[in-house]
C-alpha cells in the first residue's frame, strides 16, 4: 500500500475532490476544491480521472514524505516546493522516490496549491465524495484538516486511468513512471486567476437602489482575513441594504454575493450554507469560480457585470480548453 506521511500539515490542508453535488435537500453543500480547475489539471497531468482527490494547501504548505514513492504534480499557486531541497516545477509530473521529503513554504502567488498524486488520495467516501466539509466534520480525512503524523493512502494508479493514445502516453505503472507532459503556456495564461470578477445579477438585485448598485460595481473591495471556504468576506464601500426589511430564507448559489445589514458583501463559497436569508446583489460567474479559490486575505478585487450569454460562453470556452488536447504539451 502506498502512503503519504504528513511531517508538517501546513496552515490548513484538506483532502478535496470536485465535491458532492446533489444533496441540497439534506442541507449538504457540495464542498470540493476551492480551485477545482487546478485540481482537475493536476489530475490530468498524472493520467488520473480529473475528479480524483488531492491535497488542498492554503497559503502555507506542509511537508510530506512517501514511504514507497509516488508520482506527483502540483497545480494552483506556487508554494515554493522543494524535493530533497531541490525546487520542483509546477504543472508537470515528477517522481518522489521512497522516503524523499517534499516541502512547501509560504505562497508566492495565490491562496491554494494542490498536491495531486497518481492514483489519487484515497479516503472513505462520504456521499460519493472525498471532499472535507470542515464545519460539519464530514468527509475527507476524519472530517478535518490534516495534522502532523497523519498517514494517507494513495489509490491504485490504473484504477481510473483515462484512456489515452499516442506514443508518449503515460504508462499505467506504479510510482516508477513519470509522464512527460506539462500544462501549456497558453492554457496557463488563459486560466490565470482574475482579480476582476465577472458577475451576473443576483436574484434580489432589483431590491437594491441604483445608488447601491453603482457602489457595488464601481468600488474596489479587499478580501478580509476571516474569509474561508464557507464565505469570502469583503471590506470596502458600504452597500446600502434594500428598504423593507428581512427576506425569507431561500436556496443560495455558489458564488452568490450577499449583502448583510452592515453592507459589507460576502461571496458564498464551496462550503457555503445551502440556504440563506440575506439579499444577493450579484453572482460570480461559473468561469471565475477558480479565481475565487485563489483569493488571499488583503487581495483587492472588483466586480464587472456581464450578460447571461457571456457567462455561459465563457464557461463553455473554459470547459472546452480543459477537455482539449492543447491543454497539455508533451515534453
Amino acid at each position, binding site marked *: 500500500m502506498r502512503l503519504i506521511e504528513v511531517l508538517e500539515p501546513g496552515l490548513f490542508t484538506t483532502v478535496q475532490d470536485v465535491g458532492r*453535488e*446533489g*444533496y*441540497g*435537500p*439534506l*442541507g*449538504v453543500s*457540495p464542498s470540493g476544491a476551492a480551485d477545482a480547475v487546478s485540481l482537475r489539471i493536476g489530475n490530468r497531468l498524472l493520467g488520473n480521472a480529473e475528479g480524483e482527490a488531492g491535497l488542498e494547501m492554503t497559503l502555507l504548505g506542509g511537508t510530506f514524505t512517501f514511504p514507497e514513492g509516488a508520482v506527483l504534480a502540483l497545480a494552483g499557486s506556487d508554494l515554493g516546493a522543494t524535493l530533497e531541497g531541490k525546487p520542483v516545477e509546477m504543472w508537470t509530473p515528477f517522481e518522489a522516490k521512497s522516503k524523499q521529503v517534499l516541502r512547501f513554504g509560504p505562497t508566492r502567488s495565490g491562496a491554494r496549491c494542490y498536491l495531486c498524486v497518481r492514483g489519487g488520495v484515497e479516503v472513505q467516501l*462520504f*456521499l460519493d465524495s472525498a471532499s472535507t*466539509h470542515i*464545519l*460539519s*466534520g*464530514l*468527509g475527507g480525512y476524519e*472530517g478535518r484538516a490534516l495534522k502532523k503524523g497523519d498517514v494517507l493512502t494513495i489509490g491504485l494508479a490504473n484504477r481510473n486511468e483515462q484512456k489515452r493514445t499516442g506514443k508518449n502516453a503515460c504508462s499505467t505503472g506504479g510510482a516508477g513512471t513519470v509522464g512527460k507532459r506539462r500544462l501549456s503556456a497558453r492554457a496557463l495564461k488563459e486560466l490565470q486567476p482574475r482579480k476582476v470578477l465577472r458577475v*451576473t*445579477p*443576483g*436574484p*434580489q438585485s*432589483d*431590491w437594491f437602489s441604483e445608488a447601491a448598485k453603482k457602489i457595488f460595481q464601481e468600488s474596489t473591495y479587499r478580501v478580509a482575513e476571516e474569509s474561508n471556504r464557507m464565505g469570502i468576506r469583503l471590506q470596502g464601500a458600504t452597500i446600502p441594504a*434594500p*428598504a*423593507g*426589511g428581512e*427576506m*425569507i*430564507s*431561500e*436556496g*443560495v*448559489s*455558489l*458564488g*452568490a454575493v450577499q449583502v448583510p445589514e452592515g453592507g459589507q458583501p460576502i461571496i458564498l463559497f464551496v462550503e457555503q*450554507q*445551502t*440556504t*440563506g436569508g440575506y*439579499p*444577493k446583489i450579484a*453572482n*460570480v*460567474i*461559473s468561469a471565475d469560480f477558480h479565481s475565487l479559490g485563489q483569493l488571499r486575505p488583503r487581495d483587492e478585487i472588483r466586480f464587472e457585470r456581464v450578460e*447571461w450569454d457571456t*457567462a*455561459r460562453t465563457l*464557461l*463553455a470556452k473554459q*470547459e472546452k480548453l480543459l477537455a482539449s488536447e492543447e491543454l497539455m504539451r508533451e515534453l
Partner: protein
Amino acid sequence: METSRGEVARFQYSSDQSLLVYFDEHVEQKKTGGAKAPPGQSRITLRANKNVRRLLRLLELEPVPGVRNLHPAYCSLLIKFDAIGMRHQELEAILRKYLERLEEVRLPEPRRVEIPVCYGGEFGPDLAEVSARRGITQARAIELHSSVEYLVYFLGFVPGFAYLGELPEELVIPRLAAPRKRVPAGSVGIAGNQTGVYPFATPGGWRLLGCTPFKMFRADSDGLSLLSIGDRVRFTPISRERFATLESA
C-alpha cells in the same frame, strides 16, 4: 405561471447555473414609514411550502437530465443545472410542464418524529431570558415549545438542520442581536416563529431553550439525517438523568 387553483409560480435567474422557482403570494407593496416593501418579496404559507415539496418530489421521481442539485426552502426551490448543456429558458420550459402536474403529486405520508429535549440550565441558556421577555414562567415556555407538532419546512444551513414551524405565538422572539461563535451540537433554538436543532457545533444566532441527546445527522448510518422535509416533529421534555442515559446509549 398559473398553476391550478390560481397560485402563481415565478422564475428568477439565480446564477449562470441556477434557477429559482418561487411559490408565493407577493407581499403587498405597503407603505411602512415611507419605505416600500422590496418588490417580489415572498410570504411563507403552508400552501407554498407544500408546492415546494411537491415539485421536489416530482423532480426526484422524474429527474430532469442536466439538473445537478436542488435546494428547497420555505416557498422556493433553487435548481442547479449544467449550464453548458442547458439554458435557463430550456429548464423553465421543462419545469412549466412539471408544474402543471403538481396537483397529482402524492407526498409521502409524513413521518412523526419525537425528539427528547432537556430544557433550561446549561442545556438551554436562553430559556430564562425568553420566558422573562415574553412574561411567562420557564415551565410555561417548556410546555408551549413541546405542545405543538411542527412541520419540517426544509433542511438547510448545514447538513441535517431542519427549519421547523410554526412556533406558538407566545414564544415568538427575534434572534440574538449578536450570534454565538459556537453553539453546541444538539442545541434546540428558536428565532422568529421557527425552531430547530443544531446538528453540529456551529456559530448560531437562535435563542437556545434546551438540548437533545439525539444525533441529528450522522455520516455512518443509512438514514443520514434524523429529519426529512415534510416530517412532523414533537419535542418531549426529559430530565438531566434521562439526557445522560440517552446520550451514552
